[in-house]
Structure formats: structure tokens, C-alpha cells
């Protein structure tokens, strides 16, 4: 069996009387593209905060990239990549400056940063734009750069929180090309999305409802067991009866 990059058991987070994440247990294997779906308010964000070492769980256990989410949060942060649509790069810095900045944050030395910077700009075909302020670049380019920056320190695991929100359908698919490429290089990808066609691109998908994992399997198997034609139908069937839509 492949190495487990994420393993949780009965991971739980309570805020007062409210149980945001309710005893979730699951594993993600090395090199897997794992889709983490759920309705707004289902507990995805809270679960991701625990897995990335930003929030201490109330109970249960989780090992992420080999480290414990209670005691080794700083080590986790150094060993994972993270990208979201909301937090990614600095718009008023150039691509080169952004790469240098994040390289420094991750503690890479100057020579490594310089080499990686040149290599990254070349492979993204951004050499000419390397010194252009980021705000002047199209969103699709920024997202590609943000993804590469999230992989700058060569983590084994990367968290992508709605990475394709708001982009056009062509750019969205180009972004998935990058995800596939990273996965084929052995990087484990943990991704959230509201685009249900993207759920089909994942190796396995979990769907959270009211703090629990209501279903977890390959897209094919989920569709088969729910007798649904698309992942959208599976999602709606599971998420519609949710009690917590107002939270």
C-alpha cells in the first residue's frame, strides 16, 4: 500500500456547543489527487485549518506529512504547500520578487532561490514578465505562478483551496494540467472546489455534510453507488438534506 500522507482518526473541532468537524477519519495516499468537497458551512475550512496546523483540534488525531497536528504544527507548515484564491501572491510585487519573498519565508538559501526563480519563470514562460508588477498580469498567469510558488520548497503535499474560482473554462483546465503534472511527480494534492466537473478529475473525492464525511470514494464508484450520472447529482443528493446550511 502506498505511503499515507494524511491520516486522521475521529478528528473533531468544537466551538462551544457547536461541533464544526465531527469525528472525521480518512487517509490520503502519496501522489493522490484528493477532492475535498462539501456545502458552504459543512466544516471544510475548519478541517483544512486543522490539517495545515493553523487550528488545534478538540479531539481525535491527525498525522500530516508525517507530523502531528497537535505538537508539530510549525513543522507541518514547513512541509506543506498552500494556495487559495484569497491568499496567494502580492499584487504589488513582480513575479521575481514574489518568488524571492516566499523562498525566504520557507528558509531557502539565496543561491537556491535564484536558481529556482529562473527555472520557474522559464517553465511558466514568464521570463519577459519576470519584472512586471503582478497586478498587470492576467488572473490565469497569476494562478499558475501561485501554484508554482506553493511548490517552491518541494513539499510532498499541497493544499489547494478553491484554486480555480472565477477563472474562465480554458484557464481552469490549464490549471488542472499543472495539478496532474505535480501529482505525476509524486506530489499529493488536496483540493477543494465548487465546480463539480473538477470533482471528476480527482482520484478520490470526499463529501462533507454537517461536519461529517458523508461519502468517500472514487468518482466512478460514488456515481455508481448513488445511481447518479454526474458528480453534481451525487453532491446535491448528499448535501441537500444538510441541516446546517445557515451556519
Amino acid at each position: 500500500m502506498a505511503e499515507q500522507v494524511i491520516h486522521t482518526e475521529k478528528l473533531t473541532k468544537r466551538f462551544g456547543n457547536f461541533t464544526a468537524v465531527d469525528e472525521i477519519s480518512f487517509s490520503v495516499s502519496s501522489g493522490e489527487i484528493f477532492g475535498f468537497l462539501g456545502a458552504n458551512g459543512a466544516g471544510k475550512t475548519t478541517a483544512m485549518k486543522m490539517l495545515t496546523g493553523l487550528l488545534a483540534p478538540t479531539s481525535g488525531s491527525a498525522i500530516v506529512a508525517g507530523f502531528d497536528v497537535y505538537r508539530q504544527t510549525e513543522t507541518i507548515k514547513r512541509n506543506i504547500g498552500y494556495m487559495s484564491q484569497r491568499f496567494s501572491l502580492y499584487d504589488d510585487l513582480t513575479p521575481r520578487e514574489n518568488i524571492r519573498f516566499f523562498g525566504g519565508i520557507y528558509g531557502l538559501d539565496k543561491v537556491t532561490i535564484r536558481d529556482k526563480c529562473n527555472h520557474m519563470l522559464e517553465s511558466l514562460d514568464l521570463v519577459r514578465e519576470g519584472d512586471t508588477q503582478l497586478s498587470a498580469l492576467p488572473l490565469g498567469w497569476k494562478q499558475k505562478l501561485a501554484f508554482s510558488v506553493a511548490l517552491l520548497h518541494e513539499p510532498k503535499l499541497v493544499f489547494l483551496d478553491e484554486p480555480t474560482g472565477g477563472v474562465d473554462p480554458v484557464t481552469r483546465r490549464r490549471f488542472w494540467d499543472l495539478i496532474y503534472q505535480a501529482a505525476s511527480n509524486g506530489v499529493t494534492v488536496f483540493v477543494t472546489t465548487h465546480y463539480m466537473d473538477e470533482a471528476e478529475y480527482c482520484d478520490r473525492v470526499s463529501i462533507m455534510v454537517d461536519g461529517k464525511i458523508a461519502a468517500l470514494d472514487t468518482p466512478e464508484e460514488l456515481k455508481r453507488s448513488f445511481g447518479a450520472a454526474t458528480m453534481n447529482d451525487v453532491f446535491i443528493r448528499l448535501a441537500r438534506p444538510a441541516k446546517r446550511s445557515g451556519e
Partner: protein
Amino acid sequence: MKLSVTTEGLSKRFGKVEALREITFSVPEAELFGLIGADGAGKTTLFRILATLLLPDAGKASLLGLDTVFSYRAIRTRIGYMPGRFSLYQDLSVEENLNFFATVFGTTVEKNYELIRDIYDQLEPFRKRRAGQLSGGMKQKLALCCALVHRPELLLLDEPTTGVDAVSRQEFWQMLGRLKQQGITILVSTPYMDEASLCDRVAFMQDGRILAIDTPAGITGLFRKPLFAIRAREKHRLINELRTFEHASSAYAFGNSVHYTDLRLSPEPRELTAWLKSKGFEDIDVLRIEPGIEDTFMALMESARPQEEHLGG
């Protein structure tokens, strides 16, 4: 036919960026009209000009027969505008927000309750909760209620479903359908292609231009090339290999299959299957299919932006 929205040659520039380039279109009364396009296409700029919050550099627009520049005060009382960014008061409760907006428009919630009833019913259990504490789906419902509380004749909804889950999106569109039945004209923008098919007519926007404007059926009629849904194991390799096929025009992941177009007029599925077999694929399934809205939009985008590959986009 009465027109609720008309624009003529509407243009707007921010520094070097041409946000809108000569936008001309019209929307008849009680139509559900969709503006489809990615971030940066110009949708929000168009909405802000129509909502009388921004002056165009050139061209003109009128809403309900009134000019957006000269009659902005009259327009504001007769339209409902829901901006893309959540703009209600986060520290007021659901109820307080609704009362506030009713008061601003010189009316009461009770007076127009019929219109918002089926949306507000879902918010009722949370009426004492602060707006900032609501989930994404509920925030959108509250924002829609606030935009409707003065019974507008025209609704401008800027990406109401962005970041909202699939269930809430479906509910939101059901509500729009009911509002349309009550005679309200709705102009709505979205980055979700599946929502385009729920509109009476749609306009595809990119780089400040309208690429096409038609009914959803008319839009898919613009797609000319033969289209195939291809499945096999190893999807990522399948996409990459298909792109290297000498007759390939495009290959994109599409749900559980790859949508492939060919440069030839009538390629044989059998030939594609044989070629894929020679590349070592297994469980190959090649099916000729009818294009959807998303296929068409992608094809229009590619032809409108041929230099994109070179730019690395």
C-alpha cells in the same frame, strides 16, 4: 416589445486597461439575461455603469427608458443591485439589514413581503443572527432579499453564485425563475457555464467585448466542429496524447471524459480508437456528442484569442 436595458457603444478605460469596448445590447422586459465570462472580462464594470455608479467614457445606456447619466436618481429607486462583493452590514442582524434597506427606499418589509416570502422563509430561523455569521449561501439569499425589498422592476445581480456550493446555486436559480415569472427583468452574471443554460439569452464576454449573444440553443449552434467525448484509463496521458494527434484541434478534460475536436470535417470514431490503441490505451470509448454551452464558449475564446498560447496563458 418594451426594453428594460439598452446600451450603445459603451466603453470604459482604466489607465491602459480597456475594461469595456463598445458594448451594445438590449434586454426586453421580464427577460432573464445572463452575462457569462471570467474574472476580468468586464462584467462588473458593465454592472457598475448600469447601476449608475460609474460614468462611461463613451457610449450610453438606458434602464427602464431612463438615461444612466442624466436620470440616475430616478433609476436608483426602480432597480435592485446586488454587487459581487458581499456589501450588507456584517454587524447588523438579518432582520436589521432588511429593515434598513426598506427604510432607505422609503418602504417597509411588510409592504412587499409577498415578493421575498419564499426566500425570506429560509432566512427566518436566523433572523437574529448577524449577517457576518451567515454561510455563503445564506448571505446571498439575504442580499437578494435586500435588493428586492423595494419591489424593483429590474434586478442587476453581479456574480451572485460565485463561491456558493452546488445546492445553494440550484436554489438560487429556482428563485430567479420565480422572480422572472412575476415580471421582473433580471440581468445576472456568472462564471459558471452550467448556469448559462438557465437564462433566456446570454452574452459571452471576454476582454471587454461581447463575443456572442443569443439564446442558449442559438449559442451552441455556433459550434461547428465535430465533437467527441473520449474515455480511457490514464486520463491525464489521454489528454496529452490527443493533443499530439496530427488531426487534433483541441482536447480538454470535461467531467469524466475528454472533449476532443478534430480539424477534419467528418473524422471516424474507429480511426481515433485505433490510434489510441496504438498509443497503448485501454478501455477506450469514443462517442460523437452535441456541444454544450461550455464547449462553445471555449471555442469562441480560443478563436478570439489566438495569441494566448504564445503568451503562456
